[in-house]
């Protein structure tokens, strides 16, 4: 079987539409993961044992079960309980919940790396606990969090290919749709690999620059 460049070129527009869906899924998923991760990290560090217990259970559960199983659960099992969501919504929620567990550990490490003295100084200035979080502790975390966040975003970008299995026409899904008609898997899957690879390389270079920037500016 020879690589048909004409055919390959002809499916590029369809694949680029898939790229847009992949990027949308990754960005939305990451927003959920950041919000979820931050909430989990604060819950985990809370003085209330019940709250931190719930957070730890969540983190362990989502890290110790496969993302694909979680996606299938949301997509295939929840409808039996009357929760019917589009494949894209399920996928984004799945990615978000799964990566929340990982992001929470990043936030926790960042928060714990802030010296005790910062809490003490803020207490001595009569800040309330919530104001200490908002004004003093969390604003100091981005230089530590952002480089790692960038790497997790690349990870999520790649793993979003799993959404093809729950009917989402992201990059891999749209390619499979094309190939299922023409049976030209060589061109379609090769192109998919190239597109993921090129975007990952670009993102990874950007992540390295971010890391260097924050290493200088800490």
């Amino acid at each position, binding site marked *: 079987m020879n690589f048909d460049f004409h055919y390959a070129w002809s499916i590029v527009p369809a694949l680029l539409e898939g790229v847009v869906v992949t990027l949308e899924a990754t960005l939305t998923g990451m927003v959920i993961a950041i919000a979820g991760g931050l909430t989990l990290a604060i819950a985990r560090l809370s003085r209330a044992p019940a709250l931190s217990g719930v957070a730890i259970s969540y983190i362990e559960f989502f890290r110790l079960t496969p993302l694909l199983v979680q996606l299938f659960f949301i997509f295939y099992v929840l409808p039996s309980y009357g929760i019917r969501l589009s494949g894209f919504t399920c996928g984004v929620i799945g990615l978000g919940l799964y990566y929340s567990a990982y992001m929470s550990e990043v936030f926790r490490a960042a928060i714990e790396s802030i010296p005790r003295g910062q809490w*003490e*100084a803020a207490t001595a*200035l*009569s*800040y*309330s606990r919530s104001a200490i979080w908002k004004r003093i502790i969390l*604003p100091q975390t981005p230089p530590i969090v952002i480089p790692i966040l960038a790497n997790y975003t690349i990870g999520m970008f790649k793993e979003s290919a799993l959404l093809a299995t729950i009917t989402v026409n992201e990059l891999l899904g749209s390619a499979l749709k094309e190939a299922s008609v023409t049976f030209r898997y060589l061109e379609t899957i090769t192109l998919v690999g190239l597109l993921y690879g090129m975007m990952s390389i670009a993102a990874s270079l950007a992540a390295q620059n971010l890391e260097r920037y924050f290493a200088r500016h800490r």
Partner: protein
Amino acid sequence: MPDTADSKAILDSVPCVEFRGVSKSYGSNQVLREFDLTVPAGQRLALIGRSGSGKTTLLRLLMTIERPDAGTINIDGEPLGWRSVDGKIVWREDDALRRVRRKIGMVFQHFNLFPHMTVLNNVIEAPTQVLGLSKREAADRADRLLSLVGMREKAEAWPRQLSGGQQQRVAIARALAMEPRIMLFDEITSALDPELVGEVLRVVRQIARDTGMTMLIVTHEMNFARDVADRVIFMSGGKIVEDGLPETVLGDPRQPETRSFLRSILER
């Protein structure tokens, strides 16, 4: 007007800071044992003693960074933290505690400036966030205080660009910006290079001279303690060993333990 005179006398007679039977342990290490101390308003009290004698813990309890295991601490007659709720004594981080705590400011051994803010914002931040001052009022106040500590030119600098002595002077301005009535100084020169100690102590001396603030000063600088304080306490093992005028405790101590401590400081 005898009435006002009387009520003023009553106000004055309420001690500013009061420890009653305060105990504090870290694990099995008991730092304070049923500790009693009364500090009248306006007093400059220097606390001296070996490390581990409980003097820093005293300040941290007062600042509510630590909680006592037992006993009460009163500020102007108001209890700090502990409340009786349904017959149980519980620690409450509530408005009442914050109102009392607002009277107290603290300067730390390691400065603890906020690294993500400029010098100016370090000083403005709490007055706007906690006291609700306008940015303008807070900036005016900061300007005045940064001049006082000789850091006005560095208002736009970041903490990491400053020497330890400069950082500590900013930390003093930051604490003063909350206009506390009681200032706690916790070994504020211990982390400094020797040549930077003087500039920080000069600032504290000036504040002591120009204000009526109550001050609790933990220090190893005996000359400084002698100049600034009107009362010196030597602590050991979580207890007060000697308590008196600076010239007595530092110049002619009664207790052998105080004498051996002062000798060890001088031989440094």
